[in-house]
């Protein structure tokens, strides 16, 4: 979700095999310096891709001797996914970050083969997309301050995951501003 000079990204903590819950501590958001990647979908691909992007991001940093911008990272994600066009990774990625030069919020989402969806407001992914669209579309408004953005994204995620049997079991929210990143663990229903 984008706010006024800030962005927020959040995920639930459940890992399951169909109906049976396996882990209640499986984070789906990964940090690449100041760029944040959310990965939902097949757990093995979530791990594989997060590690692959860790490697590619580090290689970029060493070669270029500078940090990667969020839009650059988004293109990296897109091309990496399209490379596997006919044997794709089963994931729903989202990217969020602030541009280090302009300070402008950047958020985008992808389909499993890398088509980018640039958005000004919010991006959702996973098994509770319908519920999240309903929540975000009604709660979100432009230019939210960090604390208000936190409340908005948290309420959106919590109420959406409570209406999805495959989501929940805890939640994590990141609020990213120019000079501070706050990570909060939310107390949620455990059913």
């Amino acid at each position: 979700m984008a706010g006024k000079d800030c962005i927020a990204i959040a995920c639930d903590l459940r890992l399951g095999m169909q109906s049976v819950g396996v882990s209640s501590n499986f984070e789906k958001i990964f940090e690449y310096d100041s760029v944040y990647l959310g990965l939902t979908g097949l757990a093995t691909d979530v791990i594989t891709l997060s590690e692959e992007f860790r490697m590619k991001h580090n290689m970029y940093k060493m070669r270029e001797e500078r940090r990667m911008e969020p839009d650059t990272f988004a293109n990296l994600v897109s091309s990496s996914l399209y490379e596997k066009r006919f044997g794709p990774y089963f994931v729903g990625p989202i990217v969020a970050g602030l541009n280090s030069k302009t300070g402008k919020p950047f958020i985008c989402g992808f389909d499993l083969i890398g088509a980018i969806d640039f958005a000004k407001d919010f991006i959702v992914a996973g098994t509770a997309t319908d519920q999240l669209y309903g929540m975000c579309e009604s709660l979100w408004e432009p230019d939210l301050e960090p604390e208000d953005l936190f409340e908005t994204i948290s309420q959106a995620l919590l109420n959406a995951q409570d209406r999805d049997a495959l989501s929940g079991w805890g939640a994590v929210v990141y609020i990213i501003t120019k000079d501070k990143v706050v990570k909060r663990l939310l107390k949620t229903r455990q059913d």
Partner: protein
Amino acid sequence: MDILIGITTKDSVLIATSKSVARGVSVIKTNDDKTRELTDHSLLAFSGESGDTTNFAEYIQANIRLYGTRNGFEMSNKAIASFTRNELASALRSRKPYQVNILIGGYDVKKKKATLNWIDYLAANVELPYAAHGYAQYYVLSLLDRHHDPNMTQEQGLELLKDCIKELRLRMPIDFKGVQVKVVDEAGVRKLPEDF
């Protein structure tokens, strides 16, 4: 379906595996060992497609042992789990994937901490306080949710494991010929003589 259960306690990991091997309608072995020792403080338990299982487990075992002899120190449990996951993940998108589910129990002597890694045949790797594979999951996970405590002693852990096996004996439609229990702790890996 084979049974794999792992429980961490304050200072150890307990791993229980079913002793039966079945082919078609027949039980052909009743004292099977579905585990391999990777290092002095790391144990790998496996289930799944026969042939794939022992082949994969021994391949991992050989590589972890090789790493130990080459470098003069053993791989950490986190690294062992990552390595195993990686092998499974690259096999997943190859011509013939391994169909093996894995639990890795480890004890870190320096940090004095027990860890348990749950890895399925799709190569999803998670560190958990307690875990199970196969149909056993449906019976024991709820018991473990209710009674597990990360600070429990090894004795309490074994009592909990006994309760799990009791439940399986009661509810499982097929006889799995009991389980073999191995403990990983400060002293290393050892098999419990007791028959569960």
